[in-house]
Each structure stands twice: as structure tokens, then as C-alpha cells.
């Protein structure tokens, strides 16, 4: 593995993007009462546990109610 320093320029933006997406997802979950499936607790857990992009993406595909 190339040492961590050469990879830092890639890692930092990735982390920022991840956190931005997580924040937006949490905001979306908390400001909506009903979901296509599941409930608020479920989606909060999914979003936080799978925060490396997969959780929020799952939420937007499966959980977000069409407005």
C-alpha cells in the first residue's frame, strides 16, 4: 500500500463527501414523518451504520417517500 500521506489528498475529500451525505440524510429522515417502508428508528440505524455511502443511498432508494 502506498503510504498514507500520498493517499491523503484522496481520503480527505472522500470523508467530507461522506459526512455531507450523512448529514443530509439525517436531516431528511428527521424532517419526514412517513417513509415508503420501515420507520424512523430503522432508517436512522441504517443511515448511521452504513454511513460509508451505502446507508444513505439505501435510504434514498428504498425509504424516501415520493413527495
Amino acid at each position, binding site marked *: *500500500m*502506498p503510504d498514507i500521506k*500520498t*493517499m491523503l*489528498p*484522496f481520503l480527505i*475529500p*472522500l470523508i467530507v*463527501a461522506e459526512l*455531507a*451525505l450523512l448529514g*443530509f440524510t439525517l436531516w*431528511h429522515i428527521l424532517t419526514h414523518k412517513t417513509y415508503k417502508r420501515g420507520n424512523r428508528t430503522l432508517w436512522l440505524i441504517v443511515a448511521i451504520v452504513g454511513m460509508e455511502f451505502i446507508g444513505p443511498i439505501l435510504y*434514498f432508494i428504498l425509504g424516501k417517500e415520493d*413527495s
Partner: protein
Amino acid sequence: MKAFLRKEWMETVRTGRLLILGIIFFIFGLMNPAIAKLTPWLMETMKDSLAESGMVVGEVTVNAMTSWTQFYKNGLMCVIVIVLMLGGVLVNEYMKGTLVQVVTKGLSRRKIFFSKMITVYGLWTLMYLVYFGVTYGYTAYFWPEDKVEALVFGAFCYWLFGMFLLAFLLLFSAIAGNVGQVLLGVGAVTAVMFFLNYVPKLQKYLPLRLTEGLNLSLGTLKTEDFVPAVIISCISVAACGIIGMAVFDKRNL
């Protein structure tokens, strides 16, 4: 019309489409130089297993060109993502019936269609700039001394290819009734293009040629080879716009 455009914009932001698209394209852009940077290490780890099957890995050199090769390879993914994300831009509104109110309030249909066009093209341009910008920035940072030929024109061609498909997306949005039909239409256009690409004489004129910007940087193709495809794409974009508007004028909302 300004109000309608503003509504479109707010919708894109509120539903999070802008953020999600932005992040996706950002990651795509990031991957190109990252893969280039990781290639020597990947080869190093696979050396032993490759040696067993008789392949010998020599010195692997990566440079700015490796990163740009990835850029053109992943470009198609970007186009697919944007087409999937924007497939419902008009169709979903027919289904919800939200356009009926707007029309009865007196906004002309042409203006609606035109606003949608601006939104779709605007989003694609913005996202493509993110994609290009990130790759460009990182590549220039890691390999400052490497010069790659004809970058901007090659990238412009790819952008135009995206515009070409999105023009068809809008045209099919005016004709079709649901997202599936729109995506099918765009898929069919692409499939026909790939099929026609087997005829050597036609290759020069197909918009598919626009995705081969890499050959421009490598020097295997010249700028003149792209001109017919560029012209044809521009004509198709304009034609799709006009036909789409005419169809949209007549259809049931």
C-alpha cells in the same frame, strides 16, 4: 417562466438531487487519478499470482495519461448516471398532474418545455464540470510536468455526447408516458449507434465518435476527424428540441 425555473431549481436542491449528483460526480472524478496512483501498488500485490500463470510484471509507470485514460473510460458511467437520474424529469410531472395547474394558470407549454431543457442541460454541464475539474485538479497536482494534448477539446466532445443523449431524453419525455419508456428510447438510440458503429464508413459521422477523445490526446485521431460528429450532434440537439416542443404542444398533460 423565471418563476418556473426557480421552482425547478428549488426542487432539485430540496429533493437532494443536486447534492447526490454532486457527490457521485465528485467521486467519479476522484477515482480517475486515484486508480492511476494505485496501479503500481496493485500490480505489485498481484505480481506473485501473475508470475504463476507465466506473466511477468516489469516496471509499471503511471503518468497523467493514465489518469486521463480513466477519465474517458468512466465518462460513460457519468452519462448513464445522469440519464437515469433525469429520466423522470418531465414524465413524473405528467403522472402527478402538476403541469396541468401551471398551464391553466397561463404559462405557455413551450416555456415549460424550454425551462425543463435549461434545467437538464444546466445540470449536466455543472456536473460534467465537477467531474472534469476534480480529475484535472488532481492530475495537475500529482503529475505537474506531464502535458496531455488536446484535453479541453476531447472533454468538450464528451460533454457534447452527453448533451446528445439528453436531447433524446427530452424528446422521448415529450412523447412517452412513463420513465421506463423514456429510458428505453434513450437506450435504443445508444444501441442503434453502437450497431451502426460496425460500418466503417459511418464511424466518422456517429456521435459515438465523440467519446473517443482519448485518441485525440494519443494522436491517433485528429481534430478534423471529430468535426462531422460534432456537427451532427449539434443538429440532433437542435432538432430534438424543436420536435420535442412541437409534440409537447399537442400532448395530454
